[in-house]
């Protein structure tokens, strides 16, 4: 018996959960001016989140999936992607979507059940949220293939959850990304849960990062609640991809602080104690601690940020709430580029009926 292959999984963290630096910071993080925008974005994201839940609870929006506690991942990704890169997202990285131009009102409109939400006003090329878990990594392969063919060093970034890594589609996707050495970065938000299913029930793999070994490319684990680690690792992976170095799988360790969605009641399957312990690790306070220690953040700035975030969110909420309903017949407007004659009568029937049912 001989050994014919060896593999290692690295782990990266810069700020521990108290905000202390555990290893030399990457260059961008040396200047706190580069960090405050990340901080602001995370706070805005969290403000949005609370408001969205309130809208749902008061019957003004449908089921909503919160990103509470996972803000560093979306923000880290969004802040370092190039504008002409393509994001292929799951539903918990609003931070990345907002950074890339998706409007808050659009996310609200989406969860209220309105297709117009995905016709992003300021973001024309990213894919919409994918609700069928684990499906979109395979779409991302096609996107990345197209980018490679185009030859402009663009990269596709696909975000997904720990549960999604159990879908065969995900595996077919990473395997193919390896074969074609695609400019494609997979970021897995390992928030320890897929609804009620815990990580240990999802896979016997010690890390999700090691799943990349099956596909023949590099996988790594990072502290997903450390926005510096997220931004740095994604940056490295993007650079590698732009250089023709192929795909990377980044497992970002985090914790789902909220219920799975507003339709879920997590108290059925996890204890209050477990949840409250996790508050020590969430991403926002550790960065605030760090910035305060570096004297780069003041109480005043914090107050202003909170006020401003609330105002920004409220404006979006108002616009959301004032969005007039769609015409029922619009369900045929974009079914095909040109509606086939066979369905004209059905559309006409809906037009005649008007908005009776809205």
């Amino acid at each position, binding site marked *: 018996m001989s050994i014919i292959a060896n593999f290692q999984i690295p782990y990266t963290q810069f700020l521990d959960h108290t905000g202390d630096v555990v290893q030399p910071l990457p260059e961008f993080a040396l200047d706190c001016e580069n960090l405050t925008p990340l901080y602001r974005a995370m706070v805005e994201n969290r403000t949005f989140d609370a408001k969205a839940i309130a809208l749902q609870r008061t019957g003004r929006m*449908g089921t909503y999936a919160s990103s509470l506690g996972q803000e560093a991942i979306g923000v880290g990704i969004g802040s370092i992607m190039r504008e002409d890169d393509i994001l292929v997202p799951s539903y918990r990285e609003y931070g990345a979507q907002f950074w890339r131009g998706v409007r808050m009102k659009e996310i609200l409109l989406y969860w209220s059940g309105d297709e117009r939400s995905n016709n992003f006003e300021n973001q024309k090329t990213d894919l919409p949220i994918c609700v069928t878990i684990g499906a979109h990594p395979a779409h991302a392969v096609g996107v990345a293939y197209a980018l490679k063919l185009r030859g402009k060093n663009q990269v596709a970034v696909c975000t997904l959850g720990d549960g999604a890594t159990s879908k065969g589609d995900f595996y077919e996707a990473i395997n193919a990304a390896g074969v074609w050495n695609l400019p494609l970065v997979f970021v897995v938000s390992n928030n320890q849960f*897929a609804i*009620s299913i815990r990580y240990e*029930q999802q*896979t016997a793999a010690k890390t999700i990062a090691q799943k990349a070994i099956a596909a023949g490319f590099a996988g790594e684990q990072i502290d997903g609640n450390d926005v510096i680690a997220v931004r740095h690792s994604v940056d490295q992976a993007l650079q590698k991809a732009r250089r023709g170095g192929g795909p990377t799988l980044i497992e970002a360790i985090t914790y789902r602080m909220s219920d799975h969605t507003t339709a*879920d009641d997590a108290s*059925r399957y996890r204890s209050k104690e477990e949840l409250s312990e996790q508050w020590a690790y969430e991403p926002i306070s550790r960065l605030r601690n760090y910035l305060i220690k570096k004297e780069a953040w003041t109480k005043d700035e914090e107050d202003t940020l909170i006020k401003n975030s609330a105002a920004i969110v409220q404006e979006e909420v108002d616009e959301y709430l004032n969005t007039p309903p*769609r015409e*029922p017949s619009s*369900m045929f407007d974009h079914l095909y580029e040109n509606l086939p004659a066979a369905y004209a009568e059905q559309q006409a029937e809906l037009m005649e009926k008007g908005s009776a049912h809205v």
Partner: protein
Amino acid sequence: MSEITLVEAINQALTYEMAHDPGVIVLGEDVGANGGVFRATLGLQEKFGEDRVLDTPLSEVLIGAMSIGMSVMKLRPVAEIQFSGFLYSNLDHIINHASRMRNRTQGRLSCPMVIRSPSGGGIHAPEHHSESPEAMFAHIPGIRVVIPSSPLRAYRLLLAAIRDPDPVIFLEPTRLYRLFKQEVPDNGKAELLDVCLTIREGRDITLVSWGAMMNEVQIAAETLSEEGIEAEIIDVATIKPLDMETILNSVAKTGRCVIVHEAPRSAGFGAEIAANLAEHALLSLFAPVCRVTGYDAVMPLARLEKSYIPSVEKIINAVKKTIAFA
């Protein structure tokens, strides 16, 4: 005895059968501690243990496919697919393996398995949670497709499905899960599969439907009755195989038929029934066979779903038009 909802009836049937047949295994996403996202499997894991009530990884293909392996080994897996939008990935194994294992081995091996899945719209759920895929399954030789429309029928049909020696796709109308309650004796009594149930007798027209739409159909019939139009209502219940005889007998009597389903019209299961009428009832028909269905559009997200699902009014109009036909 107290009354229970449809989803409680599902739970009651699962509990009954697990207690009486040690081979029954429940598996799916979140069916254990969480009791299923609709609570259909509530309490089962506590009662029957983690070996028999199995939380799976997020792998729908696996859920269907491992049920094939289990049933080949003479277990009776009852798999839950969380929403029918995630059921399409099961079609490959259902068609190529579950439905064929008995024929492929000429009876040496078989797949007595059930795949349960909530289906249909109307509960303001997110994208992909409101599908009505029954027609696709009804095209597959070697399986059964069963759709209950009341708590009592849910209990009895599910027991029948689990006991059936062949694969059964069991589609549960989400909209009815908690809509109304019924007394459901927990006596282990199963309904017959493969037969349509005549829910209401009437001389003027035959209304054929299944699942959630039975609700609107029944309301329509009551309203029509007030106007003196007596509709016979047939709940198809098992759409594969189809008991056409019951429908033909009814149409022979009424001479008129309206078929109602929520799924898109084109190549929906209503077509199969109408086609049989065109072939076998031409001489009894006084009026065209009318299909009242969902549109040939993507099921809209929550805000427009009501405009998609056939309304009571639409059914009534179709009936009146059919009756008015020269």
